């Protein structure tokens, strides 16, 4: 399998504070890879530095074998890599339709893709002229996913897509992510929902205070004693929050 994303020894932080201390990971084409970890572990910072929202201090990033470290965020899309950031970040005062069209800013077939995305998310089709900011939390998450799909990315970076959603909605979001894989989209999924992620992922990494401490097949990690202890609240009271 070809390596779509390769990260080597990445360090990044804010001001003089380093929050990711040399992380290495890779994602192969067609995989869903989970990146798990407690609050403040540095997962979001890692994703941000992959697309250039945060400047990596050290280390290498290769997308499809090409180095991308240090390029501005607006160029990350030219590597067909799209980040759906934490907290949805939709355009609140643009309509749903406009949000989606901006997602396809560099896609010449954006009107065609709009139909495909609206078919996938019928909830959005009913609301195309509603302002993004007036959507419910779950609908905004769908919009953020839909907007990312408008660019027809090969690699999707998702930052806690289940955050703040009711259980039923969480299931729906995970189902959608699973479907992305069937469409040939590769996914790097940052999550706190350990079980949900390990159920749909092929492999996963576990991050703790800026370092990757565990990696393996999702099925193995689900039964890994360390994961069970720290994240699933078994064999000890220590919870992951």
């Amino acid at each position, binding site marked *: 399998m070809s390596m779509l994303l390769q990260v080597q020894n990445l360090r990044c932080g804010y001001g003089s504070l380093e929050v990711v201390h040399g992380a290495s990971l890779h994602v192969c084409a067609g995989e869903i890879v989970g990146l798990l970890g407690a609050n403040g572990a540095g997962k979001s910072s890692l994703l941000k530095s992959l*697309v250039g*929202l945060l400047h990596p201090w050290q280390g290498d990033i290769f997308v499809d074998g090409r180095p991308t470290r240090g390029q*501005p*965020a*607006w*160029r*990350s*899309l*030219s590597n067909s890599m*799209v*980040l759906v*950031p934490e907290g949805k*970040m*939709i*355009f*609140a*005062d*643009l309509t749903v339709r*406009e949000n989606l*069209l*901006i*997602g396809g*800013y*560099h896609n010449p077939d954006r009107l065609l893709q709009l139909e495909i995305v609206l078919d996938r998310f019928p909830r959005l089709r009913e609301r195309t002229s509603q302002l993004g900011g007036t959507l419910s939390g779950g609908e905004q998450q769908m919009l953020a996913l839909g*907007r990312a799909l408008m*660019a027809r990315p090969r690699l999707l970076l998702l930052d806690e897509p289940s955050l703040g959603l009711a259980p039923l909605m969480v299931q729906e979001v995970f189902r959608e992510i699973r479907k992305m894989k069937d469409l040939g989209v590769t996914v790097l999924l940052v999550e706190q929902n350990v079980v949900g992620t390990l159920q749909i992922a092929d492999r996963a990494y576990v991050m703790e205070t800026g370092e990757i401490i565990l990696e393996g097949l999702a099925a193995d990690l689900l039964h890994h004693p360390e994961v069970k202890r720290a994240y699933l609240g078994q064999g000890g009271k220590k919870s992951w929050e």
Partner: protein
Amino acid sequence: MDAGNLTLQYLLSGITKGSIYAVVAIGFNLIYSATGVLNFAQGEFVMLGGMVAVTLAHFVPLPVAVAGAVVIVALVGCLLEVLFFRKLRHHSVLHLIIITIGLSIVIQEAALHIWDEKVRSLPYFTGNEISSIKLFGAAISPQVIWVLATVAVTVAALHVFLKFTLPGRAMRACSSNPEAAMLAGINIPNMRTLSFGLSAALGALAGCVISPITMTHYESGAPLAIKGFAAAIVGGLGNPMAAVLGGLLVGVLEAFSVSRLPAAYNDVSAFAILLLVLFVRPHGLFGRPGGEAVREH
């Protein structure tokens, strides 16, 4: 002339000046939305537009001179962004605003050197200073019609641009959420440059159409920046179309206060409205509550 006609005359003169304030206020809005900076050099674009067009009009037909002035001033706007604001992004917004005030002075001095301190004006687009059109008993200069029509068409075109074209939507996306816009692959630095170019072009066009009525000289831009700023705040920053209403309001109130108050109070009315609005509705008359008139950074 009876009182009704006089009122109409004041109203028209207010709307004419107000429409120019409106264009300046739109310029404030476009740049503010894209960069968070209040550009107090906005009035200089209006002055430059008039000056460049007057000079070009010696060599080429008037429409070409106006078009040329708009293009040249738009390029000046882009250049200012690239030379100053792009390099100084990491400075605080307050610093950047002070820089715009400095730039406004520099541009005035440059204009004084390139041209001189003489008052100039473009010829009337149609007719001349004594021709007039009667409307409901009031005498209107045809140039007033030119001003109103140009501003109306410009505002409509801008609305269509922002609402229905991809670059226009991208500009709105940038002001709505710059990070998300970057992730969609929008080149934010270029969008900022575009906002300066567009504001400068609009200002220059306004400077051309108003030149036959109010004349142009190197200092004529600064008061416009102040009135346009007042109009933008009164309308509610962040909404170019509210700026139009703000501009008209400031213009009309100014015209009526001039008719009642001594000339020395000429500029006071704009500030009086500005302060009143800031007290009563900090988000502007037509702005949404929540979006403060002056955003904190």
